[in-house]
């Protein structure tokens, strides 16, 4: 079975995480590292995808800064989204040539990881045709945004564990006028740490990878 290294990074600034991803993507392209799954939390951040529309940002950049939110335009797919404490963020850096050369299948598989994980906590989430992500009763609980270069993936998914959902009020999440929710709002009393443990396991199952748990690593 192919291997996937997990890197639990704790809370990491979006810009630093992005640089780290780029470095690992290059290593992955050269084949010097196996597939990777970065798990982390971001401080309050709003990011705009390549196809994002600024009109989905409902506050000015100075207003965001004043609220302690950083703003980044980024090269992932998808529109605008919020990241922050209490959100389990996963950045799989996989060489899809060793899995399936299929972007659609990849996104569905990332969704599956989130759905399986949520079900582990008694939350039965679902797909919403045409709206990528994980949904519970019409509210979005998990978001996806991916970048692919030479079949190597970066960016990934964000699952609301006990995220302060009021921050989504600054944006129209992914340009959709649909509500957001979190595991905490649905009554699951769990920490990002506990959720990560299940995400890792489900990720290994869905992508058929042997998970290598390294000694705890800190991004410099």
């Amino acid at each position, binding site marked *: 079975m192919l291997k996937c290294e997990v890197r639990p990074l704790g809370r990491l600034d979006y810009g630093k995480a992005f640089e780290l991803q780029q470095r690992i993507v290059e290593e992955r392209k050269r084949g010097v590292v196996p597939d990777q799954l970065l798990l982390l939390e971001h401080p309050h951040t709003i990011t705009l995808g390549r196809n994002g529309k600024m009109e989905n940002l409902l506050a000015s950049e100075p207003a965001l800064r004043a609220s302690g939110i950083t703003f980044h335009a980024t090269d992932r797919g998808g529109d605008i989204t919020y990241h922050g404490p209490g959100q389990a963020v996963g950045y799989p850096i996989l060489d899809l040539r060793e899995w399936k050369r*299929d972007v659609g299948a990849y996104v569905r598989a990332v969704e599956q990881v989130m759905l399986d994980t949520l*079900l582990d906590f008694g939350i039965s989430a679902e797909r919403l045709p045409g709206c990528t992500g994980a949904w519970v009763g019409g509210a979005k609980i998990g978001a996806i945004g991916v970048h692919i270069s*030479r079949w190597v993936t970066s960016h990934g998914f964000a699952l609301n564990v006990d995220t302060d959902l009021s921050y989504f009020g600054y944006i129209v999440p992914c340009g959709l006028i649909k509500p957001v929710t979190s595991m905490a709002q649905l009554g699951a009393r769990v920490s990002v740490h506990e959720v990560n443990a299940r995400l890792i396991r489900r990720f290994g199952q869905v992508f058929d990878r042997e998970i290598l748990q390294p000694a705890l690593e800190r991004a410099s």
Partner: protein
Amino acid sequence: MTDVVMPQMGESIVEGTLTKWLKKPGDRVERDEPLFEISTDKVDTEIPAPAAGTLSEVLVEEGKTIPINTVVARISEGDGAGAAKPAAKPAETAKSVAEPPKAAPAPQAASPAATAPEEAGEEPSGPLSPLVRRMARENNIDLSKVKGTGAGGRITKQDVEGHLAKAPAPAARQEQPPAPPQAPPPSTGGQAKVRIEAMSTMRSKIAEHMIASQRTSAHVTTVHKVDMTRVEKIRQKHKADFQARYGFGLTYLPFITRAAVEGLLSFPLLNASIEGSNIVYHNEINIGIAVALENGLIVPVIRNADEKNVVGLQRAIVDLAARARSRQLKPDEVQGGTFSITNFGSFGSVFATPVINQPQVAILGAGTVEKTPVVIDDAIAIRSICYLSTTFDHRLIDGALADQFTGKVKSALENWSDEVL
């Protein structure tokens, strides 16, 4: 001149949005250098240049959504000389040949025929007749793979026919994308005979578990008739009191659970599981209680059920059921069960044959409690009767043991003595 096409990024993907050109017309591009970006379903992908040269033409502007295999640009060899060349007829573009970069992890072109050799990308030698072009298009043939035998190496109709005869005909490109799993059947006109819906994750999990259980265990069910009159009296006596004191009522289920604990303590094999050729006896009695949800079923576990009295069991049942229905259970609350109870009686079933909750080896099912005329000492009496089913794994448990166990549960219920609940 090399055509650059919109690549197919996956089986179900039929179109994509060209989001950004990373080069401008006239720019020098290296083979495999990122040339443009496309976006499909929340995924942005950098597409490398299929050949080195000069970006002579950009045919699709940023922001346009186009079908796969559409030619989006042309790269001319040399230094911009190609820029002067007239644009190809647009009608031809959609089926043109893409040159896949050899070692590069480039997106695969859609049709098998489009995988051209390295040298491809140039027009096949000599002009092509409209007939040959049409045949190539209709049969999805890569003309660069066809050897021309006409004047000056020109490809003739016979060459194309010969190529078709020798190569297995490439499948015609699918006219429609494969239906997504959730796609409802078209509802245009008439009444559809079926409605297709994807199973929820929970539904598919249940399906998987049920079949796995049937495949694993040798299921046998035994049914005993139990006189619940005593329990019913105690229940009636304490019901209102329970509601006032604890905020929940008093059902038959904690009594049945308590009685099952008695049975399991006497016959620990029913609280065991099988691992390979070993019998694993569990020192804890953790009883799973099946809870029906709107569209499924979950079996939360009462841990150390043997340490709880009827009040404690009722409290645990009420709590687990409520949280199961509001989907607030933690994962460890649905794991680690050593025996299960299912209460189909609450839906009116008299008796049923439940499926074992793996890796357990037995499950107790309780039918509905009904007032029934029964013969006691040659007299007819009205008693509250209930059928208890025990489904057991005959690999480990024989019928005699299963009946002794169920008999023990029955006798605990019929001779209920605790006035203290």
